[in-house]
């Protein structure tokens, strides 16, 4: 397919998570034009999908949505969602990105986000936004506070029955949309492609995703979120309110045999957070965190850990080796205790949450001359004094794209990356706001 269009901006931000949005807003506030290229149908990254955030326990969507809206409404920011980056290369003074706009099969301009199509659609599909624990339709708006609040069709599940088209009040459904390629030229770029959780399907020791009551930490975030799949915490096996919940730390991280030798950095804190939130919603439940070390490194984090202990969360030092289905939906867990009793212990819990290792959200490979470190995250050339600098001149990195990190560090880095990009632009004669 031929390239249709060429868009030109001062800066390109790759990834519309919290780091990308923060970097884009900082650049836009300096009067530079910015394009945010996001692969998903909505901006917001992982943060918009979280329940509450450590250590403040702010409602995550309450503090992310205003940032998303600010980016969407900023006259200097253009959001390009549902776009796939094909390549990014330097040509003289310019960075040229080849981007594919994936078809939504819904006209973005016409769709008013009324969801009538979604209610009419007869096909149910496991909703990835809810960790697969409930369904969406084949035509759907990704989630209630998605930006843009526009529908899209999943062609793998659409049966072309035409109900959505008939009910749409603005004739926005367009089954004939096609993939469109375009180029985007910018003087500078910020890579903010974040992280993904390691897949569970190949982890034999954790049940390969086949044990309903063994879930990932991101699924637990959804269970705890107000608009989660059940609007409360129930075990996915049968809808029972769990009496005992276990968290398995370093489930994949700090383990060379699973390909992630590094520490994923945020798991201790989010597991403590989730246990604290559970102790609020399930006050009678036993909550146990199986850990190797607790890494509470940030401001206020140690206090947060101590609060969890004071609230009755049980911390057991030990390495969980294996989980398997127990009786009636329970999960049997085998671990090597490093507590006084020592040895291999076998216990059962109603629900088990895995703190799986974090992997890069994007690896450039052949699409871009950026290199990665041994951990496969984007390599930074001056990690101490200028952590936003990459090997490619004019290309900066922010947030979890350069390694697992929490929201505070992602925001700080996004500010640093935007500052580096502003300096880069100013040095080349681009004018910042006076």
């Amino acid at each position: 397919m031929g390239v249709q269009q060429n868009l030109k901006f001062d800066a390109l931000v790759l990834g519309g998570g919290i780091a990308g949005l923060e970097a884009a807003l900082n650049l836009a506030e300096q009067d530079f034009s910015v394009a945010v290229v996001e692969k998903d149908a909505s901006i917001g990254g992982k943060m918009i999908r979280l329940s509450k955030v450590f250590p403040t326990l702010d409602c995550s969507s309450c503090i992310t949505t205003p940032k998303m809206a600010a980016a969407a409404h900023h006259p200097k920011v253009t959001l390009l969602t549902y776009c796939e980056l094909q390549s990014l290369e330097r040509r003289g003074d310019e960075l040229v990105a080849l981007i594919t706009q994936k078809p939504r099969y819904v006209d973005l301009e016409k769709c008013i986000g009324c969801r009538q199509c979604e209610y009419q659609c007869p096909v149910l599909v496991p909703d990835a936004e809810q960790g697969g624990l409930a369904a969406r339709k084949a035509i759907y708006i990704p989630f209630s506070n998605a930006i843009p609040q526009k529908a899209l069709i999943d062609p793998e599940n659409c049966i072309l029955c035409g109900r959505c088209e008939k009910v749409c009040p603005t004739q926005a459904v367009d089954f004939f949309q096609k993939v469109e390629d375009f180029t985007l030229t910018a003087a500078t770029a910020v890579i903010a492609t974040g992280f993904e959780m390691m897949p569970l399907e190949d982890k034999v020791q954790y049940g390969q995703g086949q044990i309903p009551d063994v879930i990932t930490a991101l699924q637990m975030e959804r269970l705890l979120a107000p608009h989660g799949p059940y609007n409360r915490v129930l075990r996915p096996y049968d809808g029972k309110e769990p009496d005992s919940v276990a968290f398995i730390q370093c489930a994949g991280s700090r383990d060379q045999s699973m390909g992630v030798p590094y520490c994923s950095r945020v798991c201790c804190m989010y597991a403590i957070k989730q246990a604290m939130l559970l102790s609020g919603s399930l006050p009678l439940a036993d909550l146990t965190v199986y850990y190797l070390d607790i890494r509470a490194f940030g401001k206020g984090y140690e206090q947060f850990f101590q609060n969890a202990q004071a609230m009755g969360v049980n911390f057991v030092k030990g390495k969980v080796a294996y989980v398997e289905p127990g009786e009636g939906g329970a999960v049997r867990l085998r671990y090597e205790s490093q507590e006084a009793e020592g040895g291999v212990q076998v216990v059962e819990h109603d629900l088990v949450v895995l703190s799986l290792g974090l992997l890069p959200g994007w690896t450039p490979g052949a699409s871009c001359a950026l290199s990665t470190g041994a951990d496969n995250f984007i390599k930074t050339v001056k990690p101490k004094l200028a952590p936003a600098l990459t090997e490619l001149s004019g290309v900066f990195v922010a947030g979890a794209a350069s390694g697992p990190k929490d929201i505070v560090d992602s925001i700080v880095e996004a500010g640093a990356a935007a500052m580096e990009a502003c300096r880069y632009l100013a040095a080349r004669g681009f004018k910042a706001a006076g």
Partner: protein
Amino acid sequence: MSDAPIEAESRKAALKKLIAARRPQMIAATARMKEQRRALKAIKEHLAGAELTVPEIAAATGLPVSEVLWYVATLKKYGEILEGTKAGAYFRYRLGQVVAAEAEPGSDE
């Protein structure tokens, strides 16, 4: 002759082409949809006039219990069923008003 019928004709041809191109996915998706319809119908039938927990619905319908929860969560999301009172560690579910009215004898369904 007006443009409209021509447009309608070419649209029809384009749709035919699209259906041909997507046939394998459509066949698979239609089969899944039919299975889902059967499950949803069974769940709603057992909830007509009753408030049941997920394991009770599973026992009544013969569907796997975790599958029932998936459907119940989905029906709840789209307003077709409501959460009711608690029975031990489980919640009971009942039909929403619109669905309950449709399930009344003599209604169109």
